[in-house]
């Protein structure tokens, strides 16, 4: 029982991590708490659903289409909205993402309706046996995806020119600009990355929570909480936070009853923010907001 709950919690947590990492990346490069992050995912899930249902794409092509679309969406958000107000204080930036939240909710509701839609299951639902615990194949696949994306991010930040430039912008945008790093392009890249992560977060979680304009609202909150675990700065911190949330809420749901499942994440926010306001992990350099 414990192992089972633990592993499926880990699987859900790894999906939260995708949102959490996107929140952190955008925040540390642009000071923006992106409230539309969940809606990027929601749009991504709808796009994939439409590609599968109406255009008879197979799952992987639909996923790819969704990724491309969401990257475009992220870039569009930066170019059309966020760049115009990039110098404003963070409340203005935050409120602008609220505006995008309205728009994306409205767009999804207008084109696809407010009702909840099932997302076709792509994997054999028969559970498999891993280390004595019985878990569904979907969980294993989701974890594999999340791990693969994590690896891609690690390589990107560690070894590619753009990734290193992105870290430089995080640490000190002014010096980075003086060193010849194209800060604007890096910011654009940041939003593109947010879209990239959003597409995976949306499409992978869609079979579990179904597709509707509101599907990502709770996931987004959990992503925020996870991001706070890393002090809104550290990517590993955010990932660990996301996994912790997934595991804790699943254990609470399993042992205490399903009512406690949602409450757990919120109880964790309150406890975390009350006692370790700037994250669980010691962050040496943090930009004041």
């Amino acid at each position, binding site marked *: 029982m414990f192992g089972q709950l633990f592993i499926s919690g880990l699987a859900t947590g790894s999906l939260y991590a995708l949102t959490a990492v996107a929140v952190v990346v955008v925040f540390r490069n642009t000071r923006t708490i992106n409230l539309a992050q969940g809606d990027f995912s929601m749009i991504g899930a709808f796009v994939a659903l439409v590609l599968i249902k109406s255009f008879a794409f197979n799952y992987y092509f639909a996923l790819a289409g969704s990724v491309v679309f969401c990257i475009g969406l992220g870039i569009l958000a930066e170019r059309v909205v966020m760049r115009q107000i990039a110098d404003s204080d963070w409340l203005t930036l*935050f*409120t602008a993402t609220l*505006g995008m939240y309205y728009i994306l909710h*409205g767009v999804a509701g*207008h084109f696809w309706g407010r009702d909840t839609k099932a997302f076709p299951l792509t994997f054999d639902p028969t559970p498999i046996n891993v280390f004595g615990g019985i878990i569904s194949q979907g969980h294993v696949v989701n974890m594999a995806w999340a791990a693969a994306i994590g690896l891609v991010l690690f390589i990107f930040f560690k070894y590619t020119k753009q990734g290193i430039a992105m870290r430089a912008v995080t640490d000190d945008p002014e010096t980075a600009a003086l060193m010849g790093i194209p800060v604007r392009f890096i910011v654009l890249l940041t939003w593109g990355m947010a879209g990239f992560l959003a597409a995976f977060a949306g499409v992978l979680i869609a079979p579990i929570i179904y597709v509707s304009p509101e599907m990502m609202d709770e996931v987004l909150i959990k992503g925020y*909480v996870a991001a706070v675990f890393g002090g809104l700065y550290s990517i590993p911190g955010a990932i660990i936070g996301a996994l912790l949330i997934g595991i804790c809420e699943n254990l609470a749901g399993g042992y205490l009853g399903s009512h406690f499942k949602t*409450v757990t994440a919120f109880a964790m926010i309150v406890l975390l*923010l009350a006692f370790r306001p700037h994250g669980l992990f010691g962050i040496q350099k943090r930009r004041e*907001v």
Partner: protein
Amino acid sequence: MADINAAFKAKMVQRKWAAMGVLFLAAVIFPMAPGVESWMASEATLIIMYIMAAQGVSILTGYTGLVTVGHGGFLAVGAYASALSTKYLGTDLITGMFVGAAMSAFVGWALGLVFLRLSGAFMAIGTLGFAFFVGTVVNNVPIFEGREGISLPKNHVIGFEIGDIGFYYTALAALGVTTLFVSLLVRSGVGRAFMALRDSEKAAEASGVNRVFYRTLAFSLSAAVTGVAGVLFAHYVNYVSSEVFADIWYSVDFLVATVVGGSAVLLGPFVGGLFVAFLPTFIELFVDQPGDLAFIIKGGALIFVLIVAPAGVVVGLVQLFRWLRGKLGGDTQ
């Protein structure tokens, strides 16, 4: 030069109060005007509630500098406090408002204590979590009757039953009280302490402002005002349910209303409340099925306002007005 500035300021303050007076007078006459139907009064009541809730947010976000995305939670606290006391104790609307304000103030105080060390983006996330937390509680704790909801009897004020118009006047009176309260608050020592904390917590503390006391006070006053709006909301539809009050939209709408109007000006919540609550109705006049289209237009309008006037519509207009005066060779400065 200082004298001229002071005189100018006094003139502006005078004008502001005159504008307020005219606004309220117009609001009083409004239901009696020809061609105004009962549903318009209800619509106006809805706008009043949004304005009041935004006033609550502006105390915390505008004057104290703590951004909150959780005031939908206080709306729910006020609404449920009054609904439960009406159901079990048979209180009327006015008593309900006091009960809602008190309960909301208490929860606000507690939240202020819990989030004592938060600021900036962390506070926004924390309060958003609070709104979700309240949503989960009213969904799952039996006394709140979840999605079934609690139906309330017809509204009474000091023994009289009131209809739509009567409710409108009650709400308007309540808005008058909260407006007066906010305007007196921000001029008082307490308001100055809030603003000192907003501008620099460290400097404020060094000057003897008790941070813990004033922060929690800001939270509870802000929560109380929004709580009263929640009471009005509950009695306006005679029904509370988690379907309505667990919704995160209210929290978002109230913050938007505050930011759009101008978060630290008295008129800000009025403009913002109108923006958030009236825009969908306004769009409905032109389009048959607004709903989602209203969302899109609202979002677009919000972004437009932020790009054009980042400090809010009211501040933007004042700046425009000053600039025009300068251009036209005004008499001062």
